[in-house]
């Protein structure tokens, strides 16, 4: 049995704690009394994954077995999560490949000819053929690419279909091929509690017209947190949309959950609690740290981006979306949830090299902001880890680096919008429409490998709740100009950062460090 999560209180015998900072990491000596939140130990992966997938498809929750839903002459669309999941990408074979292959075996046995596979990438960049092949595997790729295996195009008016509005007036516009299918099989990976369920189809296959109803400042400020679906306005919107689209098309949902084995063998010390590091782990740490610090930036970037996680699959559930997702959330909580008592004055975060939007790409400052104030700040259930008016200290070099191919609108957002204001509401009112409909960004999204023009706005809204909650944000090790552009302050060391935070939270604040990755969801009581 795996050990549960742990809230460590730093004492004099606590060794220095590992902190991620972009494409690097360090050991940090936190002040005595600092709370350090660790996730439960990594759960064991399923031994017979093939058997479990088969069992899930044949004995689904709230649905007939998949073979009974398949028949000759039907239109079947298989949709799968794009490369934003999981993080880091999974070592081949990806669990989506394993699932899709079994679904296709059953479809072939039932004589289904009209099958199409679509990546549910919404407004994310298109995936390259190599990236798609990594997810679906060689056999699927060879059989379907390029005509019947493709990325979703949220700007292809001919391939979108409006299903009307929800009772709250939200437009639901979804991929036409999927909606006009007899059955959608959605193959999902649930890395965090935010993913999956009603979100999968309603977001993955939607257009800007549909997405703007939940990806906006108001909704995100009232999603507390978006990793706690019952208390997330964003998820309430997904649910309404899913309800509407379920009237038009049947969805057979397959959700997979992973354990916390996020780092391969040479970096396995990153998955361990520091006082349990063996000599081998310490040698690995030292070797990896020195090599990483001394390596040229390009080589370092290639090593980190080339990392493939040896995840174990902890669960596969299939059937009706709601019932499946309930089981999935329980599995995610089992792996990630740690009970924490009370908030603190200061929350500290080590931001790693990767977020959902820079896989095989560059972590630009807006993504750093989104990872810290969006994703990690929202890794809570109940209450935020930091009190209202408290301070956030995050570690990241935060360099002014952008991937011009993947993030063209981010560059303009950084240079044109953030120089004027950092207030999410003002940004939304004043600039969103212009970027979302800019023909050049639309062209790059559809024909190049660019994120949609509106995507940096969503990243900014992602942190809207944190921005209104926090009294101060200080970035350790960050480029001062970049931090200032984002509206934050930079500090060289933790000591300096705490000194600066003292202006907001007093001279002896309570401190909490969220030790993640691996993924940790704090259940704050």
């Amino acid at each position: 049995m795996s050990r549960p999560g742990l809230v460590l209180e730093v004492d004099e015998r606590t060794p220095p704690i590992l902190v991620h900072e972009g494409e690097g990491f360090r050991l940090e000596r936190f002040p005595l009394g600092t709370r350090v939140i660790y996730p439960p130990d990594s759960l064991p992966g399923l031994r017979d994954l093939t058997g479990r997938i088969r069992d899930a498809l044949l004995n689904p929750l709230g649905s007939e077995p998949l073979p009974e839903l398949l028949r000759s002459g039907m239109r079947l669309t298989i949709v799968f999560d794009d490369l934003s999941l999981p993080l880091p990408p999974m070592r081949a074979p990806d669990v989506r490949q394993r699932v899709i292959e079994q679904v296709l075996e059953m479809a072939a046995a039932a004589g289904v000819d009209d099958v199409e596979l679509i990546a549910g990438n919404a407004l994310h960049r298109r995936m390259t053929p190599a990236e798609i092949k990594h997810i679906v595997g060689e056999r699927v790729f060879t059989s379907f690419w390029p005509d019947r295996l493709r990325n979703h195009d949220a700007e292809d008016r001919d391939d979108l279909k409006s299903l009307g509005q929800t009772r709250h007036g939200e437009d639901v516009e979804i991929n036409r091929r999927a909606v006009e299918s007899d059955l959608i099989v959605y193959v999902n990976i649930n890395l965090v509690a935010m993913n999956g369920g009603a979100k999968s189809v309603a977001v993955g296959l939607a257009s800007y017209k549909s997405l703007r109803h939940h990806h906006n400042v108001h909704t995100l400020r009232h999603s507390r947190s978006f990793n706690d679906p019952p208390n997330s306005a964003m998820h309430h919107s997904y649910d309404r949309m899913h309800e509407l689209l379920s009237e038009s098309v049947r969805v057979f949902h397959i959700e997979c959950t992973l354990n916390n084995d996020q780092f391969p063998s040479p970096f396995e010390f990153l998955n361990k609690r520091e006082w349990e590091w063996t000599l081998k782990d310490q040698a690995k740490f030292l070797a990896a740290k020195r090599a990483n610090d001394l390596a040229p930036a390009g080589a370092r970037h290639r090593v980190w981006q080339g990392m493939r996680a040896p995840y174990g699959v902890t669960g596969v559930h299939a059937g009706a979306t709601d019932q499946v997702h309930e089981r999935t959330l329980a599995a995610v909580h089992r792996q990630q949830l740690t009970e924490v008592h009370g908030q603190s004055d200061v929350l500290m975060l080590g931001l790693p090299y990767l977020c959902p939007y820079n896989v095989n790409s560059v972590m630009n400052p807006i993504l750093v902001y989104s990872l810290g104030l969006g994703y990690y700040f929202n890794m809570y259930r109940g209450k935020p880890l930091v009190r209202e008016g408290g301070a956030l200290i995050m570690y990241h070099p935060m360099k002014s680096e952008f991937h011009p191919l993947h993030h063209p609108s981010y560059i303009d957002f950084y240079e044109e919008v953030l120089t004027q204001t950092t207030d999410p509401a003002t940004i939304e009112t004043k600039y969103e429409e212009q970027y979302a409909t800019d023909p050049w960004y639309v062209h790059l999204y559809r024909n190049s490998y660019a994120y949609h023009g509106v995507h940096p706005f969503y990243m900014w809204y992602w942190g809207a709740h944190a921005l209104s909650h926090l009294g101060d944000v200080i970035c350790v090790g960050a480029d001062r100009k970049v931090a200032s552009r984002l509206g934050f302050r930079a500090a060289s060391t933790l000591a300096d950062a705490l000194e600066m935070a003292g202006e907001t939270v007093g001279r002896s604040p309570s401190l909490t460090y969220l030790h993640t990755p691996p993924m940790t969801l704090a259940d704050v009581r």
Partner: protein
Amino acid sequence: MSGGRMKLAQEIRLLRRGRDWRGRAPAPRSAQPWTEGPRTRSFPTEWARTPLAAAARTVAFDGVLRTVTWSQTRPEVHGLDLLEGVKGPVVFVANHASHLDTPLILGSMPAQVRRRVAVAAAADYFFDARWRAVATALTFNAFPIERRGVERSLDLASELIEDGWSLLLYPEGTRSPDGWARRFRMGAALLCREHGIPAVPLVLRGTYQAMPRGGFWPKPGRPVVSVRYGRPIACEPDESTGAFNGRLEDEVGRLWVEHDEGWWASLHSQDRRRAPRGPEASEWRRKWEATRPQPPSERHHRIWRRR
């Protein structure tokens, strides 16, 4: 707290912080309820008792370890005459406060006795990594012993006794955290009773001051350490294991008192069994007492002084 790129030495210093020489860190107090029990695996040690390994041990122990121990400390050995006539197998039973204890005991024994002694070493501590297991088995002729009440943990010890090996056991199960002795566990007494062999009690003094837990090297200044052997004692035919264990503790206690007050006084000491356990006082006072420097005995004083 750190910032910027560190030099390798700084990095190593930071990494080593809070860890002992083997790179282990004690679990922080708040993490102790969630500490996993040690994972041990069986490690064969028969090879360490072959003539070739014994020859290598002579070089490693006599040539290196004993030399280092005797050069870094001032050992005093008492009661070796009581070992005369002792033909193995026997079980040597000692208090345990330091990693110096084993080299000191083995180094103080006559070579013909030492060559037939196998040392019981904690399986979860010395045999958890292959390199450590090889080094321990080779240098000390050590064999693994489980100290967490695992069934059949004494099987290997029994086999060794049957093969004619004497054993060195520390019945406290671990090194003292404060320099004072703990209650003896039953293992040593049980082995003596089951195999009908005597136990040789002995007491170590000064090793905690010289190199306490967490230490890697004896403290500077060649601290005085002493080994005091007692007379071999055997379990009576109708004596229970518990009673014999009590007698062993009593004899070790007497040797402890003998070190402080002399042989005659030790014979009349009322509470000698409790003497090694130290004062019933707060932690710091116990450590304070335990770290009092050991005065060298009379014979070390110079008689002839240079002018």
